[in-house]
């Protein structure tokens, strides 16, 4: 074994030595030093527009010609001084011999220092004649299993166009995609931490990227796996076995019903639904429940809420109400009818006409600039974040600026004509050659899908249709994956790729086989959205208990137990309404409209509850605009806010009704538990609640409160306690 390794090592050493004597070039030898030392980081000399103190480099060195110009020619040539290379400004600053705001970036006499000085002495050549170009970097190992809290030295080799190789470990940049799991030092030493699972280290050098995928096993026994229900279980369980994480048990019926109702319909099960489900003895009942919820209009309401937020259904002006209601209704109806996803996307991004005649045109009312159109479409439907590439090569990606403008060219022929409705344009295809000017080179570029050759589209054809065609091709590497990853996250709290809309080579999925299988299922079903929901919700993986076993509490990404999710703002408001039997009124909507069915963001502004619990403002294409984190304001709101208080004390609300009921108190307690948690109270809970409600009460003057009022207050307090528990606030 060691002999095999030895041979390439010796050969590499020879190569290195050879290179060390070669004349130096800016592109091959100096640019990597600037990148490694952080000179061209966004915070330093690559700061947009100004650079730093008049010295400006391109971000991460993607524009060597500009950088060469800045170093060798600008500043009256003071930055490099071949007669006395050590006195060049670039050397004295980088070593902090002269005051340097960025501090000492190069150690004098280090290898990088020597190289820089020799390059200046050699007359600062840009490239050498016939210089080979960098083709690829290879990281070894590229896939490995590491024990927790252990070390691994990576080796990075650059391969050039003439076939030569060079060890660039010292000059490469390393970054782990989950710093809670592993760290990577600047010399490529990876340290795994305590958490088991899959983590990737991204390696960058000279505009090339590569990845080392690391598995950190827990190594616990996994001989007791539940049966596999479908392909999801097959892939999740395989990963769990590989990492050695035993899964939790399958959750009980109450937990399942509450979970699946919240996740598919965005609401708690009704008491009747719960009773019927618990009484059903059939072994198929969970599958049937999924089917029923999926069939209900609540499914469409819930997912329309999700999609219209991402599609920016935003009320900027009171007059937007018609367009917003139309767009929301269109989305909801299509989800209810289960229009195939590729069709849905096509109807949005290639829509023409007016909003009244064709509601998806509303998207073009919100998203006007072609740059935003391309960025939103890429992020939302392809899971690719192109924003960086508008102005510079994407730092962690293969996307160049050219690819950005190729993609933007699909949106270059959108015609707009004002209609009688202020702010609303008629959208049409403007006859002509689709092309967009590259911001830097000023060259006109034709439409091209990512990684695809440019298309010649006839002037009469709407290029957006060609984009939709490319997206929905079965071999499109992004479209299906982006959707299934987004939906996976919806149910499991964590995407197989995180963030859910950042698919790239350097950010690999934690379970690639599963992502591929989900995408294949989605494509094979002809982009059937309900089918992807069904297969997820019916899997045993989805039905794992949130309660960890003795081994898997530490797992955060292998789905060995359910990761509890705080209810969203809308879910929580609706759940409180259901539990307290009260209603929230919303402007311009019929009484009884639930928060989950609200068509646009105007209601967030109007409702302190929705705002404080993080309902988004529909301003971003990223789901992260919805803030799901806890805050002091939320806790204060639940404890003391007027709107919550009003629900607890509502006339004809549950507290009042139960306090007046003839049935014994314990029946009221059971009803509340069924409404809030879809389960019966335990013996202990029943005892505590009964004792609390039966307790005599005194007022501020220590006088006894009359029994009927005391009982009503007691039920209000009981409801307060219930909606303030974590069991209520979380989907678990």
């Amino acid at each position, binding site marked *: 074994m060691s002999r095999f390794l030895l041979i390439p090592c010796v050969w590499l050493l020879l190569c290195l030595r050879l290179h060390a004597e070669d004349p130096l070039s800016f592109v091959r030898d100096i640019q990597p030093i600037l990148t490694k030392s952080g000179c061209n980081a966004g915070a330093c000399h690559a700061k947009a527009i100004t650079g730093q103190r008049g010295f400006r480099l391109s971000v991460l060195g993607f524009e060597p010609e500009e950088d060469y110009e800045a170093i060798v020619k600008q500043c009256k040539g003071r930055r490099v001084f071949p007669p006395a290379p050590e006195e060049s400004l670039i050397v004295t600053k980088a070593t902090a011999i002269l005051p340097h705001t960025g501090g000492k970036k190069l150690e004098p006499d280090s290898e990088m220092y020597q190289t820089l000085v020799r390059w200046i002495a050699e007359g600062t050549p840009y490239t050498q004649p016939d210089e080979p170009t960098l083709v690829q970097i290879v990281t070894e190992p590229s896939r490995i299993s590491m024990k927790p809290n252990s070390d691994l030295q990576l080796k990075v080799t650059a391969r050039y166009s003439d076939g030569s190789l060079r060890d660039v470990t010292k000059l490469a940049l390393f970054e782990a995609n989950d710093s809670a799991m592993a760290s990577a030092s600047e010399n490529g030493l990876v340290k795994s931490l305590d958490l088991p699972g899959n983590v990737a280290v991204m390696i960058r050098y000279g505009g090339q990227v590569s990845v080392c995928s690391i598995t950190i096993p827990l190594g616990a026994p996994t001989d007791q796996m539940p049966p596999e229900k479908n392909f999801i279980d097959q892939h999740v369980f395989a990963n769990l076995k590989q990492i050695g994480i035993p899964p939790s048990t399958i959750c009980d019926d109450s937990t399942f019903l509450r979970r699946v109702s919240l996740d598919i319909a965005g609401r708690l099960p009704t008491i009747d639904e719960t009773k019927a489900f618990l009484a059903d003895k059939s072994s198929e009942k969970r599958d049937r429940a999924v089917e029923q919820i999926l069939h209900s209009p609540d499914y469409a309401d819930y997912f329309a809420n999700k999609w219209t937020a991402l599609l920016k259904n935003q009320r900027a002006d009171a007059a937007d109400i018609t367009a917003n209601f139309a767009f929301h209704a269109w989305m909801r109806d299509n989800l209810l009818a289960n229009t195939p996803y590729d069709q849905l996307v096509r109807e949005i991004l290639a829509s023409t006409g007016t909003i009244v005649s064709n509601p998806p045109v509303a998207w073009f009312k919100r998203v006007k600039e072609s740059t935003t159109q391309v960025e939103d479409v890429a992020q939302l439907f392809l899971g690719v974040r192109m924003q960086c590439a508008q102005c510079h090569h994407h730092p962690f990606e293969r996307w160049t600026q050219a690819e950005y403008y190729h993609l933007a060219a699909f949106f270059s022929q959108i015609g707009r004509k004002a209609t009688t409705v202020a702010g609303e344009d008629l959208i049409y295809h403007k006859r002509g050659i689709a092309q967009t000017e590259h911001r830097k080179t000023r060259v006109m570029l034709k439409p091209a899908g990512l990684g695809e050759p440019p298309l010649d589209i006839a002037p009469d054809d709407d290029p957006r249709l060609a984009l939709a065609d490319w997206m929905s091709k079965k071999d499109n590497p992004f479209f299906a994956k982006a959707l299934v990853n987004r939906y996976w996250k919806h149910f499991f709290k964590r995407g197989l790729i995180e963030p859910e809309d950042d698919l790239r080579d350097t950010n690999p999925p934690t379970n690639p086989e599963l992502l591929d299988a989900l995408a294949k299922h989605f494509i094979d079903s002809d982009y059937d959205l309900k089918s992807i929901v069904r297969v997820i919700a019916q899997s045993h993986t989805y039905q794992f208990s949130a309660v960890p076993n003795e081994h898997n509490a530490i797992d955060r990404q292998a789905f060995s137990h359910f990761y509890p999710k705080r209810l969203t703002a809308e879910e929580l408001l609706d759940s409180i309404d259901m539990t307290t039997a009260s209603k929230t009124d919303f402007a311009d909507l019929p009484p009884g409209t639930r928060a989950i069915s609200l068509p646009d963001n105007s209601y967030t502004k109007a409702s302190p509850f929705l705002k404080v619990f993080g309902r988004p403002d529909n301003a971003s294409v990223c789901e992260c605009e919805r803030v799901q984190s806890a805050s002091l304001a939320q806790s204060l709101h639940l404890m003391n806010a007027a709107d919550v208080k009003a629900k607890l004390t509502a006339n004809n609300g549950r507290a009042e009704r139960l306090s007046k009921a003839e049935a014994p108190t314990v029946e009221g307690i059971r009803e509340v538990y069924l409404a809030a948690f879809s389960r019966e109270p335990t013996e202990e809970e029943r005892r505590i609640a009964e004792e609390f409600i039966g307790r005599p009460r005194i007022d501020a003057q220590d006088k006894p409160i009359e029994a009927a009022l005391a009982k009503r207050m007691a039920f209000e307090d009981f409801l307060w306690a219930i909606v303030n528990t974590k069991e209520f606030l979380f989907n*678990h």
Partner: protein
Amino acid sequence: MQIGLTGMATLSWPGLLKLRAENASSPKSERKSIIMVWLPGGLSHVDTYDPKPDASSEYRGPFKTIKTKVSGTIFTELLPMNAKIADKFTLVRSMNQTAGGHPAGTMQMFSGDPDTRDKPKPRFPDWMSVAHYLRSKEGGRDNPLPNYIGVPAASPEYSSAAYLGDAYAPFAVSDDPNRPNFQVPNIGLTDTSEARRLSDRLALRRSLDTLERAFDLEGELGALDEFEAQAATLLTNPKTRDAFDLSKEDAATRDRYGRNRWGQQLLLARRLVEAGVEIVTSNLNGPLCGRVQNWDDHAVNHHQFEALRFRMPTYDRCVSALIEDIYSRGLDKKVLVIVTGEFGRTPKISFDRSTGPGDASGPTGTLQPGRDHWPRAFTSLWAGGGIQTGGVIGASDKRGEDVVERPCNANDFLATIYHHLGIDYTKTTINDLNGRPVHIVANGRAIPELVS
């Protein structure tokens, strides 16, 4: 990245996620608290701290100049109390920014957003919520009071935590602290039966809330516990109520600040930083400003000079009281006080007709003098924070129209603030919703004279 266990508990979950992606260095300089007194609409610099007695009558207002405690520095007669303590603060007379509208101007001052177009909503988080966020990330704070309080919040319509999320927005005190029955909602329930009921409810919940034992690895439930405990403390602990209880101040102190809304706001601000709150803003607006309730003295709104005569005595009293108080209580090293608005007012006087009668505005149609928006030169005031005081930094030209010496822009303003907060503004970035790291200050440098 060092977060103690207590830190975990106060962190929100996305906060943790963002932190991993960040490049924030741990600040070493001493942390300070900041009180920013905000003058929405902008203070007329030439009528107050930067008088131009030699300008022609088209520019010069009616106010005489007076000497101050610092020889060579003059103010107008509108600021007698400020003049007496001019050795206790430093003025930057060379502030300038590039946005002429209230929204864009305020956003530029608060977040450094260079976009000069007025937008309905800020794109970037303001420095207050950034500081609040970064402070929360450090963790280890065991003070039940919110760490960012607005008494009331500065320009709430143009300030925002943007992509940090509303968890980092201010705890806003909107009621008038000068009212005898001044109340802060959600702080210290005063009604004893209410308080008793809340305690009963909390006890009942404790005994019924059994779920968290099962899953609390990610610290998310822990964070929730922490906020719930903090909320319960705020609602029930008399000490948190004390921090807001101005009746605990002696009458002479309350008088010194002025028995009016602004005076008591600033007294409350001082009381809060003394109780350990680190970021406090106070918006000086409302009827004390005059008819339109802010400093926007266009001739259509106010008679510029009547407006200043109307409001400056209140201003002069409360701001000088705050500064004096900070020093006399030995808070001057720990607490930085900043007074500014989003811009100054146009040095050249304009005349227009009043659009309505009221305080500092003549009957509708009355021709009256005004000054418009002026971002090219204005003055900000800095006190405490251990800075060298009694100085004047920079200068505007003879009419107060343009900066002629040591220009300081909104980024420099923000950099100076972050420096005092011990936040490394040269390196700290926060990821926006697209995951793109955004610098908290684009290109600024802390004003050297203000960071000593």
